[in-house]
């Protein structure tokens, strides 16, 4: 993927750029808001990572400007503070996701992947499928190898989110945000508990495991074969 990183702190910028390069991405780096806007408006990227506090032109203004210019590239905001207001203003300006600094690199990668593979708007799927696991979004039922699996509404939402991002790593915080609308980190293992419940229903009775844990990063659902 071609990714634009707008970040003024040299160390953080190098950390992000080198890490993403190791994951096989092409990175353009801009250290000021003005340079960033110039690149964002002129080139085409798959994802942009924009720091909120930037010299010359702040992140919110950049996103607002490129959005009004018709650029639809997914934007991931980086904020130094996890304030409620910061997130809302960022998303209001047109960012697609946000991440509070400092973050685990796996979190950044997971979110960038999720953003880049967003289904195009309007293309509503009705069935999600991973190996022999099928989810009918209209009838709201799940079958594996033809057997119906009974899920609680929240479990259904959790599995749906995993299946929509099949093959990608989904982090705990992404699940907390999208399944429970928790924009903070509870101390108890809410995600682990629910994932293990789904596993008991989706994986345990079957020979092949679909839901995998990526240590220190999150979960992913994929056909190991």
């Amino acid at each position, binding site marked *: 993927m071609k990714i634009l990183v707008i970040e003024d702190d040299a160390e953080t910028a190098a950390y992000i750029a080198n890490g993403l390069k190791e994951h096989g991405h092409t990175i353009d780096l801009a250290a000021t808001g003005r340079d960033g806007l110039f690149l964002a408006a002129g080139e085409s990227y798959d994802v942009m990572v924009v720091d909120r506090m930037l010299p010359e032109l702040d992140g919110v203004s950049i996103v607002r400007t490129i959005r009004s210019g018709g650029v639809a590239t997914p934007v991931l905001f980086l904020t130094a*503070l*996890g*304030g*409620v*207001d910061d997130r*809302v203003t960022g998303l209001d300006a047109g960012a697609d996701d946000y991440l*509070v600094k*400092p973050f*685990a690199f796996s979190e950044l990668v997971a979110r960038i992947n999720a953003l880049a593979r967003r289904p195009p708007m309007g293309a509503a799927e009705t069935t999600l499928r991973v190996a022999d696991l099928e989810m009918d979004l209209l009838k709201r039922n799940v079958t594996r190898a033809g057997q119906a699996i009974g899920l609680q509404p*929240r479990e259904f939402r959790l599995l749906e989110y995993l299946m929509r991002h099949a093959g990608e790593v989904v982090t705990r915080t992404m699940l907390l945000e999208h399944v*429970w*609308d*928790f*924009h*903070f*980190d*509870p*101390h*108890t*293992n*809410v995600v682990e*508990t*629910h994932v293990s*419940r789904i596993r008991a229903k989706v994986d345990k009775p079957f020979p092949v495991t679909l839901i995998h844990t990526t240590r*220190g990063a999150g979960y992913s659902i994929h056909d190991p074969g």
Partner: protein
Amino acid sequence: MRLLAAARSAPVRYALMFAGLSAVVMALLLVLLYVWATTLLERHLQEVIEQQLTILRTDFAQDGRNSVVGLVAQHARRRGTGPVHMLVEDARGKVLAGDLPPVAPTNGWQDIELVPQSAKTRAKPRRFRGFGARLDDNTFILVAHDTADLRQTRSLLIRSFIIAHGLTTLLALVGGLAIGNALLKRVDAINRTASAIMDGDLSRRIPVVGWQGELENLAQSLNRMLTRIEELMDNLRHVSSSIAHDLRSPLGRHRQRLEVARMKVRNPAEYEAVIDNAVEEIDAILKTFDAILRIAQVEAGTPRERFSQVDLSHVGENVVDAFAPVAEDVEMQLLAHIDPNLCVRGDRELLTQMLVNLIENSLRHSPGGTRIVLCIERHSGRALLKLSDTGPGIPASERGQVFRRFYRLDSSRSTPGNGLGLSFVSAVVRLHGATISLEDNAPGLTVAVVFP
């Protein structure tokens, strides 16, 4: 020194200004009064003279010169040393009658001064004001009035006016200075208190005297402000020492482990384990910082700008939905009695986190078998959120303390947690204008949040 300082202070300057102003006004008034009084007296004197002249003129017109001479002579005999004196001279300047020495005949108003020729040379000269007139046959008549009374009255007026003026000015000055000094003393007291506080003695308060209305009100509200500041400073001191302590220990531990890892050459797997452990440890510290920052943000009141209608019932259902399986995993029960569609004005995210913190608090400090019940209902028109558990509860003596940052019961020192969960809860409660109370659930704890 003190006077000099007083002269520089605003109240005393005002006092001096007003004293000066009143002196000027008073002087103007007295001068006016003086002019007016003397004019009146002079006019009266002239009227007396004119009246006498009219009598003489009328007499002359009716009965001729001899009659006038007779009248004057008679007057001179009768009056003795009275204030009005007359003189009649013929055309050649010969005195025909009168009680004045001969004067050069001059028409109109004139001032006459007579130096007595008697033996008593020390006697004062007598002064008169007179009017001279020639009659039709060139006879000269002069009517004069002694001005001793007038002069005496004048000097009396001047003297009493000077005294009155001096007294008034003095009084204004003394009064002004006294009031200014009193004000200065009060302001000084406030100043001294402020300096003492700036020097670090936060317990100092401005002395309240009990009179001088507005100034005392000011002192009292300043004192209230100081009490609040002292509380906040106390809090801050407590928090900063707690932060230092709570973050120092994990950092120290962390350092130790790194040092141990460095002591000898290890295989990559061992290094990896140490690094992973270090990252975990640092994440925990970062989490504590995040919690502190979040509390600070809530306490600053900023989220209030984005308040909207929040379905509290929905928040409750969502959280119970998320945590019921978590409770089950540790052999507890999380139940809910939630009335539908109970709305409050607030911030959905913060209310969610508040409820999560309360539930986690119960989960963390209770043994297996505990029942946790969340009630959300309307109670006398207000939304009530109540979380009860059958855990160990909080001793009554400690209930007031648990909302303090980093406060942890002795019994829970060993359980995980940073002592910030309930501080956050209390900050969110305050932000929403709600009240929180901790009650005994016999056994266990009941937390009740009543929304406005």
